[in-house]
């Protein structure tokens, strides 16, 4: 398997504005769930469906202040970093 270093390509894999719109849309969906489940749903969605480079770009943006992101998205996405929140992919309502 070819090594995945790509030293010649800098910057985000997808335009940040677009990632922000996509992330907020996911946040909108989970809004009706209680806070804890909403965060879990958002985390699991990003973990299961987003390319790791997209997730990293989102987290980097959150570290830089998370401008334009809904609070719900920021809180859910941050769970991606917590080992304790790690869960295998599933379909259906957020668990907890």
């Amino acid at each position, binding site marked *: 398997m070819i090594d995945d270093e*790509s030293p010649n*390509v800098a910057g985000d894999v997808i335009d940040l504005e*677009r990632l922000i719109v996509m992330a907020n849309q996911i946040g909108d*969906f989970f809004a009706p769930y209680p806070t804890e489940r909403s965060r879990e749903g958002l985390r699991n969605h990003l973990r299961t469906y987003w390319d790791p480079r997209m997730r990293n770009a989102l987290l980097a943006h959150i570290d830089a202040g998370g401008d334009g992101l809904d609070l719900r998205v920021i809180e859910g996405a941050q769970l991606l970093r917590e080992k304790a929140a790690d869960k295998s992919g599933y379909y*259906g309502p957020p668990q907890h």
Partner: protein
Amino acid sequence: MPNPRKPERETITICAYCGVGCGFKAETIGNEIIRMTPWKEGKANHGHSCVKGRFAYDYWCHPDRIKTPMIRGSIEEPWRKVSWDEAFDHAAKELRRIQSKYGRSSVGGVSSSRCTNEEIFLTQKFVRAVLGNNNIDNCARICHSPTQFGLSATVGTGAASQHFDSILQADVIMVVGANPTEGHPVFGSMMKRRIRQGAKLIVIDPRRTETVDSPHCRADVHLALRPGTNVAILNSIAHVIVRENRHDSEFIKSRCEWQEFEHWAELVGSEEYSPDKIGPIAGVDPEDIRRAARIYSTGPQSTIYYGLGVTEHSQGSTGVMCLGNLGLACGMYGREGVGVNPLRGQGNVQGGSCLGSWPHVFSGYRFVTDDATRESFEAEWGVELDSEPGLRLPNMFDAALTGHFKGMYIMGEDPVQSDPNQNHIIAALRNMECVIIHDLFLNETSKFAHVFLPGSSSLEKDGTFTSAERRIGRVRKVVEPLAGYQDWEVTVKLMNAMGYDVEYAHAGEVLDELARLTPAYEGASFELVDRVGSAQWPVNTTAPEGTEVLHTEQFPRANGLGTFMLTGFVPTRERVNEQYPLLLTTGRILSQYNVGTQTRRTANSQWHPEDVLEMSLGDMQARGLRVGDSVTITSRFGSTRLKVVESVRVNPGVIYTTFHHAESKANAVTSDLSDWATNCPEYKVTAVEVAKVRSPKPRHAESSVKHAAHREREAKEIWT
């Protein structure tokens, strides 16, 4: 007139057009197809057919067919005809060069629902096992990906719960965002038969479609909602059901997660979704919402059929969940005459969905992040596989624009014509270094390609299709492939050229491999399908000849129970304003198929020589337009031109067109928004303005397609 010629040979195969999957008898003399007649034993069509399957097959030998591989160094150069070996070698070297320069994840592939299960499975294998990443997607991304997501979430299976014949036992038929009498005509005829016998019909569609009102078909309730308000309307229907205590508590208690039902009932039962609140938002009479809710919940046998009018929205997946929720709440699952069923646009969308052409799941909808699943594929394929989800089709184009995605194998797709926001797609393709097109014809996308591998039509290959009712049927080679290889052989040879050693004696061996790796297909084989005609998955030791109705005892979720998703209504970000006051929505016509690549190359074009814009009389008068005027349609993303016609089928404020002709460029205007869960584009809602063109340019001057002029001449002959 001489008598019809007598065929030398008859081959039973499946029509490659819509997802109904009609069985056909292809009659041949030598390597010439003289007739396609519907097969009486076909379990989807029972001897019926529509005007596409019956007549639109001559595209396979159209002079535009490309029969020799071609390559070129850049898209400015002319194509150079080469041998197959040289084409494979060039493609392989380019993909490897790109990967060593930009990284393993800088390349990917997309498969087509016009291809067989075996080909779709192999494309997945090519990307995962040979390219070494999960950048693999299929065209269901841009049509029914929300179906897989929304139905998996609620009932555990992203597919139709019923067989088509089940409709003959329905008392109430609810059609949402679909127009089966045009889009799925053979199924549409069966629906009409049931309506004639007295079944009630509810239609939810912005347009007064042929399904709403045509011979033998009249809706008892038509909710002509504003495009983009599906979720609001479906929640409002649910509101009436839970408020009037019309749900089936017994079914919910025994078959579903009760607690999730209570959360859901609280959400949809809130004042926010009362018909009096939602009616004005969606532009429908609140009383009609109540009537629809009462008819559906009364049943006793109520069934739902839906199409892209549900999925192609920024809340597409939520809309599908709404349907799953409704079916569960009223106990409309697990027997004949009920269920929730997607109507699929292409012959093998279901197969495309099932067989792992997705960046996040292997065949059988099992996550790439799951170790045990991944290990079973690694054992079979003999390589280590990527454990992270890859890029989805729209993300691939996004990543091409930022320079992270440089090479792509496109099997049987034309993203420039069929994907949204055309200017964006073209800019992305221009930024790529190796685009490999594997197709029957040069198309809009091949203008930006570097390698062209000539494909084979479904009449030239062996394999299986899975229709919208989960029916696995046999595609049989009727004539020899014009370019020498069946599509699956091309993918295998490309794998070989890249140094991955694999060999199959025939397509049946690919099916055997995918059956080993895909639980629902476990019992599928050429032998089985040849013996029983066709079989609906799951086909396994408990159901050796397949399964007609799903969820009869439990739902395939961890606890065996169906569940309710919370489906809050979130209006799309695409809104009308003073500058763009109209909503454009899109659809299909009976005689043509999709972007028309095939049907436009047949005499079926006589029925539909061009796409037109449907507009209400009031909207036309307000703009000083007359029938036949050439108009410009402008959105925030681009513009295109069409002829306008007056239509009573659309409400004021809504305009409608089809996209069967490349020069119509409907996707030059569609927006960049997509479904929150799957990135399925929001084709069905675009805010636009329409204005009269003062001195219309000739239509073909606007298109740079080589054959556009030819088509124009054809069309003129028809008009004069």
